[in-house]
């Protein structure tokens, strides 16, 4: 177990990397319970979205379907650097869900479909908080549809490739604090789609040890239908901020390289490990290209992100208590792609450690009920602001993040 573990290390050496960001976590109740260490995990077809190479392993006579819902509460508290005022983010649940299906064409080829919500967040601050002119509310939802083909190369190896069609919605709202009207605000909302490719490999060396490697490409959502609405602007500035304009923007999801191993310690106990590297550096800035309206010329509102690539490390364990009940546990460490200089309350992120627990209960021989819960706690982040750099819109203070994720689902094999 130790040897293959060591051989993985050079892969990441020299990379300045860290994998949370607006990744909304493992896409499936069972893999959530496992802490997301699912690159070489074949006990749930939810692994397909992490590693399409697993799909060949399900090239048997069974058709499998797995479906479930995910709810995530991401909450941050803030204490102003100079005002000492504490603000907690409003409680909002970011809904998610997944649907997986696999079916074998023959003993070598299997087809699969994965519908997931892998990226997204919902940030909602009280509308009168200190940073209301930076952000009041921001929301990103993504839906990935991934048809996948898996090939069993031989008894021990399989490979797979999937094409991702992604659809996403983005909206943002902030106060215009330069005016007296507390309701003066701008709202942006847009939606768009993009494509990506996922590929992966799975292999076994002996009965107990298996490994997986996968690469998921960057997905860029092209949002060309954005609407910007502004309210509460006094008449004297009406020409500076028209009530309604169009805008376009691009929202990028990172590429991810994952390597994982799974080892049967005993017949009932499985351990899994994952490393992944997410190419968050694809997210450089959020540019809103606002079209000209009336006498107001076209302009670009740019908010700098400068994310860096991020690494994550995950360990999971699965134990079969009895033929009906399997329990899962996991631990993970996610590096944040957000640098200190660009901490922004629109999407607050931190290096975080998380623990998770889950279970799978076989209701009948074909139907299993799955549930999991995961809790992440972030490092304290301190945002310093240079007031003289008026292009960087921010609020100085400390942030603390906690993420609660729960998922419930059903798995069927027939």
């Amino acid at each position, binding site marked *: 177990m130790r040897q293959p573990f060591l051989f993985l290390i050079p892969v990441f050496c020299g990379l300045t990397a860290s994998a949370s960001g607006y990744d909304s976590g493992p896409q499936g109740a069972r893999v959530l319970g496992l802490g997301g260490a699912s690159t070489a995990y074949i006990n749930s077809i939810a692994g397909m979205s992490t590693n399409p190479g697993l799909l060949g392993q399900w090239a048997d006579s069974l058709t499998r379907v797995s479906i479930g819902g995910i709810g995530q509460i991401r*909450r941050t508290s803030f204490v102003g650097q100079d*005002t000492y005022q504490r603000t907690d983010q409003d409680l909002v649940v970011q809904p998610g869900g997944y649907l997986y299906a696999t079916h074998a064409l023959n003993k070598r080829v299997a087809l699969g479909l994965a519908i997931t919500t892998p990226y997204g967040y919902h940030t909602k601050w009280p509308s009168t908080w200190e*940073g209301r002119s930076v952000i009041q509310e921001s929301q990103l939802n993504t839906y990935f549809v991934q048809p996948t083909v898996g090939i069993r190369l031989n008894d021990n190896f399989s490979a797979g490739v999937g094409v991702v069609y992604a659809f996403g919605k983005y909206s943002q709202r902030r106060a215009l604090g330069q005016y007296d009207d507390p309701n003066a605000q701008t709202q942006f909302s847009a939606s768009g789609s993009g494509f990506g490719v996922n590929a992966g490999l799975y292999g076994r060396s002996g009965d107990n040890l298996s490994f997986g490697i996968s690469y998921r490409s960057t997905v860029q959502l092209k949002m060309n239908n954005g609407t910007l609405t502004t309210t509460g602007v006094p008449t*004297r500035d009406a020409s500076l901020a028209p009530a309604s304009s169009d805008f376009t923007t691009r929202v990028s999801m990172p590429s991810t390289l994952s390597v994982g191993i799974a080892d049967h310690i005993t017949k009932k106990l499985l351990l899994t490990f994952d490393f992944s590297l997410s190419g968050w550096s694809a997210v450089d800035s959020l540019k809103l290209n606002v079209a000209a309206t009336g006498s107001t010329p076209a302009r670009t509102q740019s908010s700098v992100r400068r994310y860096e690539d991020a690494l994550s490390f995950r360990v999971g364990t699965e134990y079969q208590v009895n033929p009906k009940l399997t329990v899962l546990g996991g631990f993970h460490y996610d590096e944040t792609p957000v640098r200190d200089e660009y901490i922004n309350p629109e999407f607050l992120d931190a290096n975080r450690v998380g623990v998770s627990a889950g279970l799978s209960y076989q209701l009948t021989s074909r139907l299993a009920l799955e549930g999991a819960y995961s809790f992440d706690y972030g490092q304290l982040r301190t945002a310093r602001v240079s*007031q003289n750099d*008026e292009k960087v819109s921010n609020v100085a203070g400390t942030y*603390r993040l906690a993420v609660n994720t729960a998922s419930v689902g059903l798995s069927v094999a027939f």
Partner: protein
Amino acid sequence: MKHFSFTLSGRAGFVAATALLLNACAPGQDTPTPTAAIDLSHYLAVGDSYTAGFSAGGLTRTSQQYSFPNLMAQQFALASGGGSFTQPTLEAGTGTGYLNLLDFTATGQPRARRVAGAAVRRSVIDPAACGGPDTVRLFTRSATASALPQNLGVPGLKLSQIEVAGLGNETNATPGGAFNPYFERLLPAADSRTYLQAVTTAASSATFFTYFQGLDELMPYIRSGGTCGTVSTSLAETMKLNARKILDVLAANGRKGIIMRLPDIKTLPLLRQGQGKNVEARLQAFYHDNALIYIESPFVPGTSQPITDEDYILATALPRIGQLTPVQVGSSILMLPYGRDARNPIRNADVLEKASELNILTGIITTYNGGTSRALSLEGLAKLYKLPIVDPAQSLYTLDTGLLFTNVGNSVAIGGVVYSAEPVRGNFFSLDYYTLTPRGNALLANTCITAINRAYQANIPAVDVNKLPTTAQ
């Protein structure tokens, strides 16, 4: 099988428990405890227009509420040891009136209209005042008159007048008399005490002070484009000597406080807006021509000279530049654009010329703030009184307000809102191009609070600037 149902109270309990559970998802953080570290129980503010809360060309009850000393006192009260703070509050609706924004001219200059103040006790017209007839209004006496308020800011108070007896006595409210109506309402009726004596009385119970005075000595001269009064380098010496007289009282017995330096007058929009070549370029772009701007020569009467970048047109005169005005040329009268023709130069009253006026003013301020000569400057005095360093970056014992004014001039972002030196949209300077808006006062108060926190290891919370109104009306 037992039926699973909620009673009403059970359901309420379930909802409450769920809410509690979910609320626990907000991760905790320690909030710093506000502490004062020094005795702030009786704060005394000494100064002129800025300290009094003058805003948008007037002093009103609202503008007084947003004076920077009052904002600071409110923050002191949040920290342990902050006491109450009395201001000589005007009754609602009374006062001087104020400037209200009308609109913007085609060249982007704000136009304002004066809203008159009501309930004036008496007014005295001085027909021979510099720059045209002037009215001195006597206001209703402050309720704090018997005991003197803690905010001793007096608009228009000149440093050179601090020992003028009867400055606040109504009998001196005559045309041309040495009289300040704002000081008059702070004192009991027919009181001939000088400002210095008033400060001495008020300081006896004070535990902390701020001193921000001197700009009003120069403002009448600046606002009149150098036509009212005279300034010379010896004025700086007078100002320093008188500042010492006040500060000797304030800093007596090791009393803690903050001495504030004067900002560079070129950072005030009154001048900043009218920097010679900038205005020239703006107007050339607006009129699509290459006309230069000319000003009256201060040395050869009757001739004109092209404006330079170090001559500053007063912002109050800017809307008139380029307007056609009748000018006698030879034997005929021509309509020529004001300032944009060598034969119709900008009058001396509308511009501060570099060599004869501006350089003297900036010299006075530099000397007063921190120059080295016989009498001690503010910086020298602060060291003399063993006040702590409030600005480690510049190793200063005095608070450099000029830094804030310069930063604002280059635009600063506070919690996502941009503040600049532009009147109205910049949200820092008020419509009189000189005093501050409530938010400007809050930024000044925060600068002061930062200095106190640093100098005295205190933890006084800052004001959330963006929550304050943008005008004091």
